[in-house]
Structure formats: C-alpha cells, structure tokens
C-alpha cells in the first residue's frame, strides 16, 4: 500500500494510515491516509466538522483513536506501551482558542513545560523563552498576564510556548479563526517565518489565500476522509474531485478566496 505523499525509501515525519475515530455514533475520521515529510507544510482544508481538528488532536494523542495507525519518524505511536508525554514533547500543537494559562504571566507560560518536562534550569528556560519571545516581537510582553494581550499577541505567545519545547513538528488548529480580522496577519506572518525556517507543519485552516501561499500540499477533507491531496496551485485552480470543486465554489461565493 502506498500512502499519498510518502517518499519511497524515506521515513515520513508523520505517517497516518487508515485512521478512524468516532465520538459515540458520530464517525468523525473514516480512514485517513496521510504522510508528512520532514520540512513539509501541509494545509488541511474543509468545512467545519470535516474532521480537521480531530485529525490534529489524534496525532498529538489528545484523542484516543478507534482504528488505524500513526507513525512518528517510523515509530508507531498508537500502539500499546507508548508514553504519550514523550510523544507530545516532539509535537507542538496550537489551538484555535489560544488556551494560555491565565494565572501565569507570558514568560511563565512559555517556561513551564521546559522546566517541568525537559528539566531545564529556570535560568536556561528563561533565556531561551526570552530569545523566542524576542524573535516573534513579544519581548516586552514577558511580564504581562494573558488578559492584557490582544488575541493576536496571545496566539503568538501560544506558538512560542509550543516552540519552547523544541518540537520536531507543529500542529496548528485553525489558529486564526478566533481572531479579529486585523490581527490575523501578524499570526500568519509568524507561521510563515516558521515555514521558511524549515518547520514541519500540519495546519488546519480556513485561510485559503494563506494555504495557497505557504503549503507544499493542500488536503481537502470531507466526511472524515481526505478527498483530494495536491499542491496548492493544482488543488485551487484545477481541483479533480467534484466535492472539492463544490467546496471551493462556496468559498469563492463567500469571497474568502
């Protein structure tokens, strides 16, 4: 069996095969096959409820799966005797709703996991956190509590928080959907910078223009399956599947493309 996108002879960063997941009677993922190579950026598009977020949560082991397999650099992470905490150290995830810890300031949000999980010293964690915050224009926010920040700033802190664990892969779950329109650009710029830095990313998004610009491949999901998987130029201008065409038509009608 060949998984779409898998390089022959190369181990994919993430290799998902036959992934199934239900919530009660609700079948959300119905046999997803997807391989993400190192340094590749893949955007997942599709209507709400098509399974994009669930797919990302499954990869990070936040949801137990019902069938199929997920391999991380060749290792099955969905089998028994897997320490999810070890897996999650290598996979950063950023959520639509930021989920910063409201009782900690920005610096502490970023350094919590490095000090508690990676056992870094406070001094080292602080230094690395400040370097990251500085890189993403948040140096002056280190002492602020999340409620003092704009949505865009909060989301950038959430990205920095995930990066502080030095993950191999980043999962971004509709990270701009909860933002006011004028704040979207600053977050997308950060993601763009990560992509140009070679970060492997799996991005669920509604920002079609952004997906076209940044993705190596775009996957269209519907009813828990990947319907079409192609480079953005091809998928957006010449979709092969009728369902992809229908989805993109609606997006165009909504003036989102």
């Amino acid at each position, binding site marked *: 069996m060949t998984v779409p996108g898998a390089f022959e002879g190369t181990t994919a960063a993430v290799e998902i095969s036959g992934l199934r997941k239900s919530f009660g009677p609700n079948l959300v993922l119905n046999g997803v096959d997807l391989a993400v190579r190192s340094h590749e950026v893949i955007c997942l598009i599709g209507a709400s409820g098509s399974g994009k977020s669930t797919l990302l*949560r499954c990869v*990070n082991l*936040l949801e137990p799966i019902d069938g199929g397999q997920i391999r991380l650099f060749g290792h099955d992470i969905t089998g028994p005797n897997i320490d*999810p*905490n*070890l897996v*999650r*150290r290598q996979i*950063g*995830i950023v*959520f*639509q*709703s*930021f*989920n*910063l*810890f*409201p*009782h900690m300031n920005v610096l502490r949000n970023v350094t*919590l*996991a490095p000090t*508690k*999980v990676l056992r870094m010293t406070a001094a080292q964690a602080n230094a690395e956190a400040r370097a990251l915050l500085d890189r993403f224009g948040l140096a002056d926010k280190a002492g602020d*509590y*999340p*409620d*003092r*920040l704009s949505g865009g700033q*909060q989301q950038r802190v959430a990205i920095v*928080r*995930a990066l502080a*664990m030095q993950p191999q892969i980043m999962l971004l779950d509709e990270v701009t959907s*909860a933002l006011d329109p004028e704040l979207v650009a600053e977050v997308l710029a950060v993601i763009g910078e990560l992509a140009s830095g070679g970060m492997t990313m799996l991005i669920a998004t509604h920002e079609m223009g952004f997906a076209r610009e940044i993705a190596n491949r775009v996957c269209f999901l519907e009813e828990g399956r990947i319907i079409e998987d192609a480079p953005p130029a091809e998928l957006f201008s010449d979709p092969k599947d009728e369902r992809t065409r229908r989805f993109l038509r609606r997006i165009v009608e909504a003036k989102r493309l």
Partner: protein
Amino acid sequence: MTDNIDNLATEPPAGTPVGGFTTGRGPRLFTGGGRRGVVISTVSTVIVLSILLTIFLLAPGARTFEHAFFSPHNMWQAFIGNPKKGYYSVGAAIWLNIRMFLVSEALILPIALLTALIRQSTHPAMFPIRLLATIYVDFFRGVPLILVVLALGLGVPALDLPVISHQPDVVYGVTALVLSYSAYVSEVYRAGLNSVHRSQISAARSLGLSQRTALRYVILPQAVRNIIPPLLNDFISLQKDTALVSVLGVIEANQAADIYSTLIFNYSSFTVAAILFLILTIPLARFTDRIIDRDRRRRLAGAVT
C-alpha cells in the same frame, strides 16, 4: 465561563452598576456615584438607623432588654471573668475558638482536597476508594454537625480504646468539625476543579506535562482561585461553628458566656461573645470581597471556549 467572556465583550465592564445592581464582581459595600453618591448614602444610612433605633426605644420592654443584654457592667465582667465567683472570661475563652478554628482549617484544606481528587478520579482501580469517598461526603453533609460533635465526644471515650478514647473533649470537638467541614469543602474543591475548562487540560497535556504536573501547576491554581469566595465563606461559617463544641462542656466563648448567664442571671455575656465572633468574622468577610475583586481581573483571559 464562556458565557461570561462573551457577555463581557458586548456589555459594559463588570462592576458597572446595571439597573441598580453591580454585575460580574463580588459584592461591593460602597458603589460609585461620586460626591452626590456619598451624600445620598449618608442621609439614607442616618434615616434607616434612626428608624431602627426608634422602634427599639419605643418597645415596651426596651429597658429590661437593654439591661439583660447590653448592661455595660455585666459585659465587662463577662469579658474579664472572675474565677472567685465561678465564671470564666469570655475574652480569654475566645482564644480557644480561634485555636480550634486554626487547627481545623489546617486539617480541612488538605483532607477536603484529597477527597475531591479521589471523587474526580476516573481510573477503574480507584472505584472502591471513590465509593468510600462518596459515602463519606454524603454521610457527613447529611448529619447535623452538633450530632457529630456529640457522637464523637460521648461515643469515642465510651469505646475505651487505648489513647484514642483518652483525649481531651476539645480533640473530639475539633475532629467532628474536621470530618463535617471536609465533606462540605471537598464539594467546593470539586466545583473548582470542574470550573477549569477542559481546553486548559488539553493545553497542558499537549506540552508533555504529566497528569500530576498539569494538575499541580495548571488546574489546581485556577481551581483554587475560582473557589476562594465560597472557601472563605465556609471558613467564616467554621469560625462560628466552633461554638458547637461547647455541648461537650469545653470552655470556649459560648460556654463561658452561658456559665456567666446562669450564675449572674444576665445575658450580656452572650452579647460579648457575639461581638467577639463578629470581630473575628467581619475582617475575613471584607478580605473575601477584596480577594474576589483582585482575582477577577486575572481570570478573564485564556480559558475561552
């Protein structure tokens, strides 16, 4: 939580009087209105107090009542006590209440937290312990505290066990307070744990934090902040309920006042006890209000949806 946040986006800032009431923050004694507001509240306070005082003074038994409950001489005597005449100082006895309160509280906080965590656990192996914890909470929330005090204070010595049955009465009293209040406070903790949004757990776990670490650094601090008002409310209640230990004959403030009234036939000693309890509880009540106001600000971000 979600509703709260959504509302805040469209409504005036929390604390702004809406339709004559403050919304979204703790009770505030003095609300805004500037200089005019101060004048209005002063006049209104004077009028209300005058009416109450007039009703009191016009009551047929006002003189008798005043002597029985507010006699300065008796109040002072009850406060300082007089061992030669056989009554104890209410002022000294309140220290026992304070000590009982402090010891109880120090035991209740960890025991209640442990009970709450056991009841919140989901592992199948924990089932028997979870069942025990549930029975414990149901039982002690259902039985009147005074019965628990009596049952322990009279029952345990009757068992004639080594050591356990030979403690001073105050130990049984405090044990009863701890058992009863831990059951209540564990439910407060549980509400607090549930008030932290699931997404916070996702965020913590996704960073590789173990369940324990996530609980310790992410969930518990937020849960405890959310329950500070009800927790302090239970503390206030506990301060007063230390008086129930008097049924075992322990000489705390209420018992000392009772002895005075029985010997001297004057109830002013109870007024002294009441004033002392108020002096203990009112600062805690005001402190609670301040904590609510202070922490409100920090709770508003992060945990949306």
